Structure formats: structure tokens, C-alpha cells
């Protein structure tokens, strides 16, 4: 077993080297902007760039709308499937997995051709419409993660009993979903939301092909034209991803482990 532990350390050390060297190199590179000394100039330039603020703000807003749309679509569906239509579960699960099968570039290509300015549903004819289409596209990208998170959350509560109790007290469907089910799966919804946020924030393909002033295309533009700022942006993006994942982990500690009654 001793040699086994030795090899485990070797594997771990090699892995750690592969994963940390690029991070260290990027940090180092991002601080090289001022000649001869290390400085945070690149970060200052990036954070002070009005285009950074504008595109970052745009993508944050798009992410928030994506999360809202995702919750509106996924929570009632996952709830209803658990409560009344369990026979549809395989179909819904299959559909939620489709965005992993169909590449994002293909989905957005379909949008561009289907919802152009002279189609029956001209999403692309106006700015608002295109923004809406981007949020819709992001919601499809987030669908697999959002559905899985919410469905796992629903598994830990007793959907049927909660629904009956609410109905006995005279609650309608809207009240049941917003005031009984949603608060109970809030932690699961939030972890899905943070994952969605991390995915959407730097997304490039859809935003670029729909010509939206989002963070992803801005990153690409800076990468093509600047030397040190991209490294600073990479570190910022890594920090944001890290923050989202940490929040998910912290939230999961508050999540209930299992249902009181198996469902």
C-alpha cells in the first residue's frame, strides 16, 4: 500500500502542476504591464474601461433574466412532472439534455434563420427582440443544469403531502408553487442559478452571432487587440467562476438531505 500512496502523491502533484502553472503564469503576465516592476496596471486599465463596465453590466443583466426565465419554465414543470405526470419524466429529461447534444452554435444558427426580420416571429427585427432571443438562447443552454438542480431539490421534499396540505387550506396552484414549493427548493434553485450565472457571463458564441454588446465578445475583442489586459480579464473571470462555485457549495450545506417520507 506504501507504493500506492507514493504514486497517488505523484499523480496529485502532476495534476496540481498542470492546473496551477497556467494560473500562476496568467497572474504573473497580468502584472507585467509596467516595464520592470510588477503592478496592477492592467487591472486598473481593464476595470476603468467603460466598455468593460458596459458589457459586464449587460451580461449580468442577461444572466439575471436568464435565471428568471429558467426558474419560470423549470420549477412548475419539474413540480408538475413529479406530482401528476410521472410518465412524462423520460421525455422531459430527454429534452433537457438536448442542449448538451446540439451545440450552442447550431441552436443560434437556427434562431437566426427562423426568427429573422421577415419571418412570422421577427425577434431579430428589433433590439429588444434580439435581447430577448439571447436570453431565451441562454435559458436553453442552462436548461440541463437548472432542471437537474431543481429536480434534485424536489426529490428531498414531499411534494404530494405539501400540495395536499396547501389545497386543504384553500391555496390555488399559483400560491402552491410560489409560496409552498419554491421556498422549499430555493437552495436547489439558487445553486442552479449560480451555475447559470457562471456559464452565461462569459458566453461568446450566441452573443457574438446575435451581435449583442455582451462580455464574451468584448473579451474576444480585447484578446485580439491587447497584450496584458486579457490576462487580467482571465484572472477576473476565474475569480467570478470560483465565487459562483463556492456559493453553490456553501448553499448545499443548508440543503435538506432527504425527504421525511420517500416519494
Amino acid at each position, binding site marked *: 500500500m506504501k507504493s500506492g500512496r507514493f504514486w497517488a502523491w505523484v499523480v496529485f502533484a502532476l*495534476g496540481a502542476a498542470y492546473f496551477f502553472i497556467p494560473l500562476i*503564469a*496568467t497572474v*504573473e503576465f497580468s502584472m507585467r504591464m509596467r516595464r520592470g516592476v510588477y503592478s496592477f496596471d492592467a487591472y486598473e486599465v481593464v476595470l476603468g474601461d467603460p466598455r468593460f463596465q458596459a458589457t459586464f453590466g449587460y451580461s449580468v443583466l442577461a444572466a439575471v433574466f436568464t435565471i428568471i426565465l429558467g426558474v419560470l419554465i423549470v420549477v412548475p414543470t419539474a413540480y408538475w412532472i413529479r406530482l401528476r405526470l410521472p410518465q412524462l419524466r423520460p421525455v*422531459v429529461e430527454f429534452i433537457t439534455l438536448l442542449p448538451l447534444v446540439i451545440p450552442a*452554435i*447550431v441552436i443560434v444558427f437556427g434562431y437566426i434563420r427562423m426568427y429573422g426580420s421577415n419571418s412570422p416571429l421577427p425577434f431579430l427585427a428589433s433590439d429588444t427582440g434580439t435581447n430577448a432571443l439571447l436570453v431565451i438562447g441562454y435559458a436553453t443552454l442552462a436548461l440541463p443544469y437548472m432542471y437537474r438542480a431543481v429536480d434534485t431539490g424536489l426529490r428531498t421534499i414531499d411534494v404530494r403531502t405539501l400540495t395536499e396540505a396547501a389545497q386543504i387550506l384553500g391555496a390555488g396552484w399559483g400560491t402552491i408553487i410560489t409560496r409552498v414549493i419554491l421556498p422549499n427548493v430555493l437552495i436547489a434553485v439558487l445553486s442552479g442559478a449560480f451555475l447559470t450565472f457562471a456559464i452565461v457571463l462569459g458566453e461568446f458564441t450566441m452573443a457574438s452571432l446575435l451581435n449583442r454588446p455582451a462580455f464574451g465578445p468584448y473579451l474576444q475583442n480585447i484578446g485580439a487587440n491587447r497584450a496584458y489586459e486579457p490576462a487580467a480579464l482571465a484572472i477576473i473571470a476565474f475569480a467570478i*467562476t470560483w465565487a459562483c462555485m463556492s456559493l453553490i457549495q456553501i448553499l448545499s450545506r443548508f440543503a435538506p438531505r432527504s425527504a421525511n417520507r420517500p416519494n
Partner: protein
Amino acid sequence: MTDLSLADHAIAGKTAPPSEARAFRLPTQWLGVAPFFIFAIMFLVLPTLYLVLGAFQNDAGAFTFDNIVGIFDPPNLSNYMQCQYSSWTSWVDGNCKLPSILAAYWISIKISLASSLIGAFAGLAIAIAIVRGGLPNWIRSATLTFSGVASNFAGVPLAFAFLATLGRLGLATVILNTVFGFNIYAHGFNILSFWGLTLTYVYFQIPLMVVIITPAIDGLKKEWGEAAATLGATTAQYWRMVVIPVIWPSFLGTVILLFANAFGAIATAYALTGSSLNIIPIVLYAQIRGDVLHNPHLGYAIAFGMIVITGLANVFYIWFRTRSERWLK
């Protein structure tokens, strides 16, 4: 049974008398999932179907296989003319030697295959090391946390990180050159190449493998090892006859998932290599932006081909997945 009828009354009782409730039963049941299905059909199924149908139509809308055949066409003269104007056509060697669409598929498949296999084996080794290697407990949790982050750290920023590491002025390149006197660029390495891109993709492939395969390795029951030892198996026999057969399906399934993951990715490659490396998503990107192939239906055919490849990969994934779940409780 009681709860079902109770719920039915709650819906039907408000709008219709009990005698009519039966007729409305099916529609009200389906109303709950209608928004989801409308969304999925409008924004997932129909747009994809539109492209798939377009792949089998010509400009007049008649059915044809020409576009599919066009994928396999060698570059022709009109393509060659156009390659002087569009940048994506310049091949890795810098000459304007137009590769066929097939070549772009092929290099995409090679990169996806290489990065998924390397990522899978490295990820498996790391997962085994942290689960079975007798390492301190904090290493396991730290590795899993980091894997969660790194598997989502893709796209444009990842390309920046690797340019800062292995680009011509990257830290690793410079240190290898000044400290060890080894110039990797003089020895044929280039970050804007097949191996450069593969090495970059591995950065999100390994963590994804670790995240998915660790539960499978946790699922190897201790009793199996003890049972094997009781029956006189050597360590090698235990691995060969117990561990590998049990892990194999979920391992292979994850390889396929990694493959599809790399195959559809565009942002990293585009930010890293611009348009100098001709992978299929970049060809499609250029086609959507500016119809560089001068044939919209050929673009549909390329999209269709991508769906076929990732679709096949996922069919295998689901198949292996159901096989492996039989073993892991």
C-alpha cells in the same frame, strides 16, 4: 388514490361541474407542462429541425442530397478563388490551400478525441489517487472543489490563460528557454496548433472527468476487494477482473460526453487561434457571419453533420450509462 381525486376536484371544481370534469381531465393535466413544451419546441426543436430540413433542400426548396454530398467535396476552383478574401480558409501552414469541409470535421474529431482521451485517463488517475490513494482528506475535497471551478472555466478566458503560459512570451515558454535552454517553439510546438488546442481543452476535460467519475470510484465497494482477496486474487487480478469491468462503462460513457463537450466548443479555439485553425465550429461560425461558402444550404448541412456526430456520441453515452448504473447500486 384519494389525493389524486382531491387534486382533480380542486382544478375542475372551480370551472366545471363534476360531470364535465372527466372530459377536461386530459387538457388540465397537460396544461401544467404546456409552457415547457412550447418553449422547448419553439426554441430548441423547431430551429434545429429547420436546419436539418434545410440541409436536404436546394435553393428552390426541392429535396436534394447535394448539400450532404457537398460536405465530402474536395475544394473546387470557386472555393479557391474565395480563399483569397476570407481568412478562415488559410490553412495552418499559412498557404492558401483550402481544406475541404471534411478536413475541418476531421481535425475537430481528432482534437475532441485526443482531448477527451487524455482528459479521461488523467482525470481517472486523479480520481483514483484522491479516493483510493490514502491521501489526506482535505486533498480530496480541495480537488473536487477545484474541479468544479475548472470544469466551468472555459471559453475565451481559458484561451488567455494558455496564451500567458505557453504563448511565445508566456511564462512557461520563457522559463523553459532561459532556465533550461529549451525553446519549445524552435522544437515545433505552437499554441496555435493541434497540440496547443488539445492541451488547452484538457484544462476543462480533466476536471469534468474527475467530477463525474469520482462517484463511480466511490461506488466500488470495499467488500469486493475483501471478497477477491479471500478467494486468493492478487491485486492485479482484482483490478483486471473486478475494478476495470465495473468502472469501464461509466468511464467510456464519460469519454463520449467529453468528446461531445469538446466538439461543440468554439470560444476557446476562436480566441486562441483566431481563424487559423480550421475546426468545424469555426467554419460554421464564419459561414453564419458571412456565407463564406456561398451556399446557405451547405451551412445547414454542416450544422446537421455536427448534430449527427454529437448525437451519436450521446446515444452511446446513454447506453453505457444505463449499463453502468446496474452495478453502482
